[in-house]
């Protein structure tokens, strides 16, 4: 049983209860970065097309914003 006393006295050396709690909730320690790495997604052809469309969209958006700033500054 984890008591309030244990919590209050907790420090980085005495941390068994911390590990127990986090482990029971399936949470990783902060420094155990990506203990379960998912890796890069295997993209379906549709998603690949979508991502390329987004690249074009991003480029067009950038042009739109720059044009907008240019117009506003010119006024």
């Amino acid at each position, binding site marked *: 049983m984890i008591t309030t006393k244990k919590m209050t006295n*907790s420090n980085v050396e005495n941390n068994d209860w*911390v*590990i127990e*709690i986090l482990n029971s909730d399936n949470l990783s320690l902060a420094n155990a970065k990506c203990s379960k790495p998912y890796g890069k*997604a295997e993209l379906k052809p549709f998603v690949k097309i979508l991502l390329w469309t987004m690249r074009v969209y991003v480029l067009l958006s950038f042009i739109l914003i720059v044009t*907008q700033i240019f*117009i506003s500054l010119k006024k």
Partner: protein
Amino acid sequence: MVTLSMQKSSEATLLSMQVTTEDIQRAKDRLRVRNARTSKTPFSRLLLLFLLIGPGILVMLGENDGPSMLSYAATGATYGIGFFIPFIVLTFTMAFVVQELTVRLAAVTHRGHAELIFERFGSFWGWFSMIDLAIGNLLTLVVEFIAIQSGLGYFGVPTPIAVSIGLLLSITVMLSRRYWTWERIALVLSIFNCLFIPVAILVHPHWGQVGQALITWSPLPGKINQNLLLFIMSDIGATVTPWMLFFQQSALKDKGLTPKDIPHARIDTALGAFLAAAFGVAAIVATSVLFTHHVDASNFSSGAFAAAQFAQALEPYAGHIGATLFALAILEAGLLATITISSSTAYAFGEVTGAAHSLNRSVKEAKGFYAVMIACAAFAAAIVIIPHAPLTLIVLVVNVIATLAMPPALIFLILLVNDRKLMGDYVNGRIANIFAIGVTVFLVLAGSIWGIMTILTGLGILPNS
């Protein structure tokens, strides 16, 4: 199936790593949740909800920020009570649909939004998301400080002092060094968003008309013109924005949300959406009195002192108390958004760079995280103080960037929640996908129309109003 040997190996991995203050603080929070869940006392259910609410309310009320509330105020002053009241309710329903996806993503993957994009779609999209968010957030922060300046301006506080007060208060909350403390202070602050309700009551609106508008969507705002479309786009932009996706997912991860907590996190998000819609509607109702009395407020929302102008215009109808409450509500809106938006940038920075990123860390442990958070707010505050800074241009660009950045953010969100490798049993179902894709298509179309209209107006092809 989880076997005993897998559990032992997982424990061994955990034991071999150093426990940080972030883990200790998170474990304390999780222990409280566990105790509340197992307790059989009559108040345990309420206690559990109290422990798990937070990010959902903060994200929704954080989006009821300075410019959003001024946008609602301008809507009320221009169109009165009618179509826009149920429209605000609809936009917050859409916001709930979108934010619920981030709740599941955070609970199942224990990763932030930027982190997942980086991991699953590569560094180009990871960095793009972070930089896109950072630029949008930085400019939005400038607008929040304009709101703070404007709110305090009503009380005669000079701009440099008003901005300094706002910055100082924000930094004090940011440096609470404990996620739980930060969240609770921000929640207390967010309650003051309700100040729009007494203002609405003080102008003595026709409540029957408000009820009728909610049910019948009428009276309609008249003929469809560019001005009406701009108000519609502006109110959509005031409800669903990219920083919300990043913020809620990162905050839930920092809180240590698990799949067991999803139902409570949904209640949290729904409650936030309900409160934000109620306060947004109250802002419209409050300023509808200006519409009724034919007060021209068309230049208020674009000005640097919009809140003060609205408060002064409301004084004859809501009294000095009503006007004061309106100015205070705008001040709160700017302040809360400064805290939440700065943290969303800092979280995304940490997630993409791999640096420590948690409000449970001390400043010493997460220097980069706190530096980004404070630097964003300080830089935005400095811009507002600079004499003759192009604030009107910044307000315009903020809206354009927020609208244009939304489609990629939403598309990544939908791809991620449909990723079975990430989500397992929590992958998006058919009905959830219909809603999510429907909302995405609506927002993309709305954003595209607005973007095209903005540029055509700028080129002089369309008239200004």
